[in-house]
């Protein structure tokens, strides 16, 4: 029996464990296995193999039972996830349904999740803009949260590292607040977007409209072909999973790469209940997993553990990892675990009509989505009555206008015929929010999920700063659109709950001081150095750029640090 146990423990022992197989977990797995570490990748959901498990990817609209519309029963049963723009008949199988994993909305919060291998990397909007020191120095300069323990120079090479592998299209725009990277050719702006870009450049200081940088292979390099990926075909059906591997997902890229190394074991259907901390050894020794099929608890052991369960679930795992040493959650000596949670403010957009350019249109589809306006407020100095600022998505388009009056042969003909509409231009805000102690997540004191894990209480809301920023966005964009000669300008604000931005961040923030942060400059838990947290949970502040690229870079950097620490014997 003793021998059997020893053998069983041996089989459950790895060099490294990665909790989560999505955007950041995939990167941890890739980097660790590239360095020869025997790595266990844990995923709470099912496996989704590239191409093979994209059942809708090649369907034409008429091949869906409701031609793309979700049945009302599905919509009514899922008010939360149904608010996500990407949740449709072609993609619903990649989203967590509301009843599948409950949480407590102390304040309204739309938690959008993808529980499968690849996680939300199958579903993301693929926007990839680097952060700069205007972001990393933000909290220190403006006196909120805590100072980031890193600066741009620390992460610059790691941005390059992940960009080369993931494949990022973009122009070298030479904008200090949005540093250039390792780019594949950009998708171009269309005529109206270009006009606006030129207009803004000429008339505004430090404001730019650039081609959005995105994780699509405009022109693959050998490293992308080596992954089995090929050129983006401009389908814009990304949420179905891409059979070409045209955009970066863990499924198309990092996970199969890690598995091909021969060093990785992928275990789906594995909910991580907690990280096991050994009080005697003074370190984490493994994780406790609940098999979602058998409900059986199984322990796995490793020298180093990467927590990449996505921001909220990583907080949940850490909070639920209680021991004599850490009665309030792993690494939570400071009491800040779960606090200073933040998100992105997507609460306004604006649209207008554009005169002219009637002889021109576009042909095909633009996977980058159009233009991007980097943050221009409070960049070099504080200039408004709110802190920080917002970036803007921007796109111009026209469409065929049909007459829908009446019935019969004329109507039928009108459904084919129709003049092109004038050009329209639209923009939405992406605002930085300020992490606060009062925006937090915590374990529910009584309610548990079907795997015996406490439900997460989420208490996150907008504040005055967000509302002032929203007002400023509307004012500034209205002014810019007006000066540019756009007509019929209409701004609107929404009351979407935090979470629907799907940019939730923080709770286990990085910082210099263990008294006010959970993680150090290498994403190690201050007081438990063989545990790394490198997904959205680690974020000290939110900037206003889409965060995934930064998660990837932080993860690659941390994984290589872990490899060095193992070599040096600092982690055993």
């Amino acid at each position, binding site marked *: 029996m003793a021998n059997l146990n020893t053998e069983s423990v041996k089989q459950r022992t790895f060099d490294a464990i990665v909790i989560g197989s999505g955007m950041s977990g995939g990167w941890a797995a890739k980097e660790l296995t590239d360095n020869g570490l025997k790595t266990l990748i844990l995923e709470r959901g099912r496996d989704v193999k*590239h191409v093979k498990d994209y059942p809708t*990817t*090649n*369907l*034409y*609209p*008429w*091949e*869906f039972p*409701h*031609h*793309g*519309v979700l049945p*009302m*029963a599905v919509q*009514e049963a899922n008010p939360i996830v149904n608010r996500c723009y990407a949740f449709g008949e072609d993609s619903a199988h990649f989203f967590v349904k509301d009843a599948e994993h409950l949480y407590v909305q102390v304040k309204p919060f739309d938690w959008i999740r993808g529980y499968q291998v690849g996680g939300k990397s199958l579903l993301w909007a693929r926007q990839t803009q680097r952060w700069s020191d205007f972001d990393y120095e933000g909290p220190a300069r403006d006196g909120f949260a805590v100072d980031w323990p890193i600066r741009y120079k620390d992460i610059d090479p790691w941005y390059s590292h992940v960009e080369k592998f993931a494949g990022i299209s973009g122009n070298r725009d030479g904008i200090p607040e949005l540093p250039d990277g390792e780019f594949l050719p950009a*998708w*171009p702006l*269309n*005529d109206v*977007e*270009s006009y606006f870009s030129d207009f803004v450049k000429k008339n505004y200081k430090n404001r730019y409209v650039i081609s959005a940088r995105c994780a699509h292979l405009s022109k693959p390099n050998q490293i992308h*072909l*080596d*992954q*089995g*990926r*090929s050129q983006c*075909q*401009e*389908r814009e*059906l990304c949420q179905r999973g891409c*059979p*070409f*591997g045209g955009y970066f997902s863990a499924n198309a890229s990092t996970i*199969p790469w890690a598995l091909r190394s021969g060093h990785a074991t992928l275990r789906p259907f594995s909910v991580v209940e907690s990280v096991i901390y050994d009080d005697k050894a003074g370190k984490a020794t493994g994780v406790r997993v609940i098999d979602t099929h058998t409900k059986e608890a199984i322990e796995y052991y490793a020298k180093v553990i990467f927590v990449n369960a996505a921001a909220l679930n990583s907080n949940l795992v850490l909070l639920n990892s209680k021991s004599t040493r850490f009665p309030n959650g792993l690494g939570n000596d400071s009491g800040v675990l779960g606090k200073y949670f933040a998100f992105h403010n997507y609460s306004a957009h604006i649209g207008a009509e554009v005169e002219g350019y009637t*002889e*021109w*249109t*576009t*042909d*095909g*589809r*633009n*996977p980058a989505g159009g233009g991007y306006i980097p943050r221009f407020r409070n960049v070099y100095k504080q200039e408004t009555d709110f802190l920080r600022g917002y970036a803007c998505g921007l796109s111009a388009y026209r*469409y065929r*206008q*049909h007459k*829908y*009056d*009446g*019935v*019969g*042969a004329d*109507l*039928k*003909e009108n*459904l084919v*015929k129709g003049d*092109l509409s004038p050009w329209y231009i639209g923009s939405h805000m992406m605002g930085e929010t300020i992490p606060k102690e009062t925006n937090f997540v915590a374990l529910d004191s009584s309610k548990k999920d079907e795997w015996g894990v406490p439900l997460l209480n989420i208490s996150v809301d907008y504040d005055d700063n967000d509302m002032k920023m929203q007002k400023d966005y509307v004012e500034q964009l209205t002014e810019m659109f007006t000066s540019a000669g756009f007509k019929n300008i209409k701004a609107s604000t929404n009351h979407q709950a935090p979470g629907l931005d799907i940019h939730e961040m923080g709770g286990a923030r990085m910082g210099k001081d263990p008294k006010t942060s959970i993680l150090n400059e290498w994403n190690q838990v201050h007081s438990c150095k063989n545990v790394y947290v490198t997904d959205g949970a680690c974020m000290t502040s939110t900037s206003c750029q889409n965060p995934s690229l930064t998660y990837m870079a932080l993860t690659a950097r941390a994984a290589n640090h872990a490899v060095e620490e193992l070599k040096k014997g600092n982690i055993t």
Partner: protein
Amino acid sequence: MDRRTVIKNLALVIGGATLLPSCIKGSGNYIPLKHINITADQEKLISDICETIIPKTDVPGARELNLHVFVLKMLDDCYKKKDQQAIMKGLGEFNALVQKRYNQSFGDLSVKDREAVLTGIENSHKPKAGGNKPPARSFRPQKDLHVPPLDAFYQAMKQQTIFAYTTSQFFMTKEIVYELVPGRYNAHFPVKNLKTA
């Protein structure tokens, strides 16, 4: 992974297109409904209305394309219960209205009279001139129908018939060309070079 694997994946892409479920197309004029009850007479009425909205011309119409089957499926699956009730109530009112005006059922009317009935309902409830009519770019079911039953019935019929037609395989391959794999983005493209259907 090497280039051969890439090619293999691409073959899967292309091969995938032939392995698709045929869904409801070609399933004849019977369709099992889950949420609403439709009699044979009502099904015929809906089919007649579909054909009146999208008649056979030099290209197939609603009957030939079996559009009413899809319309019924949408009514059954994609509307709220209260809207389904309004639509069914509206269907009854529609029958009564036709009977009262023509002393015949809709199916017995001439094409001209059928069109007159439908456009009559449409015109009597048009937004007033200058009203804020949103550009109709999608005929997906509205989240909520906020109109009296007869209009709810008419709107649902018209929207879903148009949606059925414009997303049908016939329309998307013969009348316009829907591209699953465009493989291009031209940001600066002359309108005059657009393919017209």
